[in-house]
C-alpha cells in the first residue's frame, strides 16, 4: 500500500486504462449498431461536439457545482452535527435516523415542484443536493461512532475515564474512516441532487443544459454533458480521501477499527411481551411523528396554500373522493383503492430491485476486495452510473433493458448499489492485518477467509447498508416507475401532480414515508438480532 514504485504504479494504471479502451470500443460498436445508433452517438462525434461546446461548460458547471457544494456542506454539516450532538442520547439519535429516512424517501417528483414554488433561484437545487447526502452521511457517522473496540472502551472505563473520554479517545478516532466513506459517497450524490434540481425547473446549470440538449435531440451534446458531469463527480469522489489522508494520516492504520465487535448501546432484551410492546410503540410513534411533521410542514411551507394539503384534508379526500385520474374507460379512479394498488406495486418493485442491488453489491465488494483490479475497473463505472441523472439516460436504458421488471431492477440496483459497495469495501479493508495473517498461517483457503473472516467483520457495515438501501430502493422504485413503467405510485403521483390533484400527491407521500419507515424498522430489527447473536 505504501507508495508503490513507479513501475508498480504504471502497472496499476493498466487495468483502468484497458477498461476505458474497452468501453470506448463497445461505445463505438454500439453507435454503429442499427437503431441503437439513433441514441448512441459515436465517440468522435461527442468529442467534436464537446470541443465546440467547451465555451459553455464553465458557466453551467460553475452553477451546478455551486449548488452541489452548498448542499454538500449543509447536508453533511447537519448530519455530522446531529450524529455528534446526540451521541450521549442514543434514543434521540435513533429518532433522528428515522427523520433522515423520511428525508431520503421523499419522492423527488412530488417535492421538486413544491421547492420550486417555495424558494427562488438555485435554492431548490441546494436543498435537493443536501437532501441527497444527509441520510447516508448520518448513517455512516453513527456507524463509525458505534463501531468501536469494546476492549478499548473497557480499558478507559477501568482506568476511571468518563464517557467524554471514551468519546474523545475511542469513538471520534474510530468514526473517521466510516465518516469519510460517507462523505465520499456523498460527493457524487450532491452533484446528482443539484442536477436533478436544475432538471426539474432550474434556471441555469448542467441540468438545464441537459434539458435543452435532450429536447432538441442533440444526442452528442447530451452525452458530452453526461461525460462532464461524470468527470466532476469522479474528481469530487477522489479528492476527498486524498485530502483526508493528508489531514488525518493515522486513519490509514485501519487496525483500530474492529468492525463487528461494536459496543452497542441500544436498549434491548426481553422477547415476547416486551418485544411486542416495543413494536407497537414504534408503529404508533412513527405514525404520529409522520402526521405531526406533515401538519407542521404544511404550516411553514411558504406559499404552501397553492399545493400543500394537510392531514385532515387528505384523509377526508381519501375517505370519500375520486381522483382526477381517469381510467382507460374514461371514468375517474376511486382515490383510496388506486393509492393502495399503486403502493403495492411500488413495494414489489422496490423489493425486487433492493434484493438484486444488494446481492450484486455484496458480490462486487468481495470480488473487489480479493482482486484489486476489479475495484480499479468498477469504481469509475459505478461513479459514472451514480452521477448521470437516470432521467437523462432513460431513453438508452429503455432500449437496452426494456420497460419491464428487468428495467426496474436495473434502475434500482444502479441507485442503491453504490453506497452499499463503498461501505462494504471499507469494512472489508478494516479487517485487522493480524487476523488475515493468522488465516494464511493456518493455510485457510480463500473461501474460508471470505466466509469466516471477511463476512463476519463486514456484517455490521452490511446491515447498516441495508438500512440505507431499503428506503433508497423505495425512492428509486418510484423514479423507475415514473420514467420506465408508468405504473405504481411513482407514475400515479406524477400524473396527479400535473393535474393539481395535490390531495392524492400528499397522501402518496405519506404512504411512501410510512412504507419506508417500516422498511427501516425491519432493517433495524434485523441488525439488532444479528448483532445480538454475534456477541
Amino acid at each position, binding site marked *: 500500500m505504501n507508495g508503490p514504485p513507479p513501475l508498480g504504479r504504471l502497472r496499476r494504471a493498466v487495468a483502468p486504462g484497458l477498461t476505458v479502451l474497452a468501453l470506448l470500443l463497445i461505445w463505438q460498436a454500439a453507435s454503429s449498431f442499427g437503431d441503437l445508433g439513433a441514441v448512441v452517438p459515436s465517440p468522435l462525434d461527442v468529442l467534436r461536439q464537446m470541443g465546440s461546446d467547451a465555451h459553455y461548460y464553465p458557466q453551467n458547471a460553475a452553477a451546478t457545482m455551486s449548488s452541489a457544494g452548498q448542499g454538500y456542506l449543509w447536508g453533511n454539516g447537519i448530519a455530522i452535527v446531529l450524529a455528534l450532538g446526540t451521541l450521549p442520547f442514543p434514543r434521540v439519535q435513533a429518532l433522528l435516523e428515522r427523520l433522515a429516512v423520511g428525508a431520503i424517501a421523499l419522492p423527488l417528483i412530488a417535492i421538486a415542484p413544491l421547492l420550486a414554488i417555495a424558494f427562488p433561484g438555485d435554492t431548490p437545487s441546494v436543498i435537493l443536493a443536501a437532501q441527497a447526502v444527509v441520510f447516508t452521511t448520518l448513517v455512516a457517522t453513527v456507524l463509525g461512532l458505534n463501531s468501536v473496540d469494546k476492549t478499548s472502551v473497557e480499558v478507559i472505563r477501568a482506568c476511571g475515564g468518563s464517557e467524554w473520554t471514551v468519546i474523545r479517545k475511542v469513538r471520534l478516532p474510530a468514526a473517521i474512516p466510516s465518516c469519510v466513506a460517507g462523505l465520499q459517497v456523498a460527493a457524487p450524490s450532491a452533484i446528482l441532487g443539484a442536477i436533478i434540481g436544475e432538471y426539474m*425547473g432550474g434556471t441555469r446549470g448542467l441540468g438545464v443544459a441537459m434539458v435543452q440538449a*435532450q429536447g432538441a435531440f442533440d444526442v452528442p451534446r447530451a452525452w458530452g454533458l453526461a461525460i462532464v458531469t461524470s468527470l466532476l463527480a469522479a474528481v469530487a469522489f477522489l479528492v476527498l480521501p486524498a485530502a483526508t489522508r493528508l489531514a488525518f494520516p493515522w486513519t490509514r492504520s485501519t487496525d483500530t477499527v474492529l468492525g463487528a465487535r461494536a459496543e452497542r448501546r441500544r436498549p434491548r432484551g426481553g422477547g415476547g411481551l416486551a418485544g411486542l410492546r416495543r413494536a407497537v410503540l414504534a408503529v404508533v410513534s412513527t405514525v404520529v411523528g409522520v402526521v405531526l411533521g406533515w401538519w407542521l410542514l404544511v404550516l411553514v411551507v411558504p406559499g404552501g396554500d397553492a399545493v400543500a394539503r394537510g392531514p385532515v384534508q387528505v384523509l377526508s379526500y381519501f375517505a370519500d373522493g375520486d381522483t382526477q385520474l381517469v381510467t382507460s374507460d374514461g371514468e375517474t379512479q376511486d382515490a383510496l383503492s388506486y393509492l393502495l394498488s399503486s403502493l403495492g406495486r411500488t413495494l414489489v418493485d422496490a423489493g425486487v430491485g433492493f434484493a438484486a442491488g444488494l446481492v450484486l453489491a455484496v458480490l462486487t465488494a468481495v470480488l473487489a476486495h480479493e482482486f484489486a483490479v476489479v475495484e480499479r475497473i468498477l469504481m469509475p463505472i459505478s461513479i459514472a452510473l451514480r452521477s448521470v441523472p437516470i432521467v437523462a439516460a432513460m431513453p438508452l436504458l429503455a432500449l437496452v433493458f426494456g420497460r419491464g421488471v428487468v428495467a426496474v431492477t436495473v434502475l434500482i440496483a444502479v441507485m442503491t448499489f453504490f453506497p452499499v459497495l463503498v461501505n462494504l469495501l471499507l469494512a472489508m479493508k478494516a479487517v485487522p492485518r493480524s487476523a488475515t495473517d493468522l488465516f494464511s498461517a493456518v493455510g485457510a483457503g480463500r473461501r474460508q477467509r471470505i466466509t469466516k473472516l471477511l463476512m463476519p467483520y463486514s456484517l455490521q457495515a452490511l446491515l447498516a447498508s441495508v438500512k440505507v438501501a431499503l428506503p433508497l430502493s423505495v425512492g428509486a422504485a418510484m423514479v423507475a416507475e415514473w420514467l420506465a413503467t408508468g405504473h405504481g405510485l411513482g407514475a400515479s403521483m406524477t400524473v396527479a401532480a400535473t393535474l393539481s390533484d395535490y390531495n392524492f400527491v400528499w397522501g402518496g407521500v405519506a404512504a411512501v414515508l410510512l412504507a419506508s419507515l417500516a422498511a427501516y424498522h425491519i432493517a433495524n430489527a434485523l441488525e439488532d438480532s444479528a448483532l445480538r447473536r454475534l456477541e
Partner: protein
Amino acid sequence: MTQILLQQRGMSRRSFLRTTGRGASVAAAGLWLAGCGATGDGAAGEGRVSVKLGWIPNVEYSGIFVGVADGFYAKQGLEVEVVPGGPNSPVTPLVTTNRVNAGIEAIPENVATAVAGGAKLKIVGAGLQKSPECWISLADNPVRTPKDIEGRKLGITLAGKNTALVFMKKNGVDPDKVTLVPIQFDPAPLAAREVDAIWGFASNQPVALGLRGIQTHVMPMADYGFNRMQSVFFVSQATLDDPTARENARKFLAGSRQGWDAALASHQRAAEVTIQKYGKDLGLKLDEQVKTLSAMAPYVSGADAASKGLLWMPDTLIEETIASLGSIGITADRSLFTNELLEG
C-alpha cells in the same frame, strides 16, 4: 364530491385573503424597488411585470424577448422580468401565490384545474391559436389515422396520459390494444424505434428529428376532435381588480403582441435575439431555433389573427377549448377566459 368542492372553496377564501395580503406587501416592495430603479430616465421603472415561462427560454417565447429587445415594453414604461421554466417546473402556483405577475402555461388544463381547485385565475391571451399537439411517427412507419395506433407501442408524457386515453375513446380506439409507456420530452425513444409513435408538439420534435435527417409523419390532435388554445397567458383575478397591476398587465400583453408581430416578421432575427440574450447559457443553435419558430408560426397567428391581432381568443376557440377540457374531465366555463386586456 360536493363536500370536497365546498371544502376547497373554504380553503380558497382563506388563501385568497392571505394572498391579497402578501400581494400588498409585494406591491409595496415593487414600489420601493421602482423608486430605487428610477435613474432619471422616468419611463423605465414606472411599472414592472414578472412573467414565468412554462419551458426553458428558447424561441417558443421569442415574441417576449423581441418585445424587450426592441423596447416595446420600455416605450410604455414597463419593465419585464422573465423567469424561465423547465420540465415539471410549476407555473400556476407561482401566479396564484403572487410570486410572479403573469404566467404562460403550455396547456390550458393546468390553469383550469387550478381554478376548479379554488384559485382565482383568468386566461388573458392565447399564445397558440391552434393546438400543435400531435402523434409523431417515423415516415417509414407512419401512424396516419387514430385506428392506426391499435397494436402499437406509444410514448406519452405522464402529464398527457389522461388526454391520450380520452383521445382513444373518442376515436374508437381500444386502449387495451395499445401499449402506453412513459417518455419525457425528448424524441429519442421514437428515433431508436423503441416506440412506434410519441405524443408531442408539431413545432418541436419533428423539427429536432428533421435536423438530424430523421423524417417524421405528424397526425395533429386538432384534426381529430381535440383542439384547444395552448401556450396561454394568464394572470390572477387580483391583478385584474387592481388598477395599477391591471394596467401593467395590459401593457405587457400589448408589448408582447408587438413583439410577436416583429418575431413573425423575421424568424431569423427573433432567433438571434433569443440566443444572444436569454438562451446564452443553454448553447441554443441558430438554425434549429429558426426552424422551430417557422414551424410554430402558423399556430401563433391562427385564422382570426388578421382581424383581431395575436393572442386574441375568438369565441369559437374558447368554445372549442371548453369542450376539449370537458372531454378530459375538466370543467371550465367562459368566465375562465377574458379578452379584456387585449381590448385596450
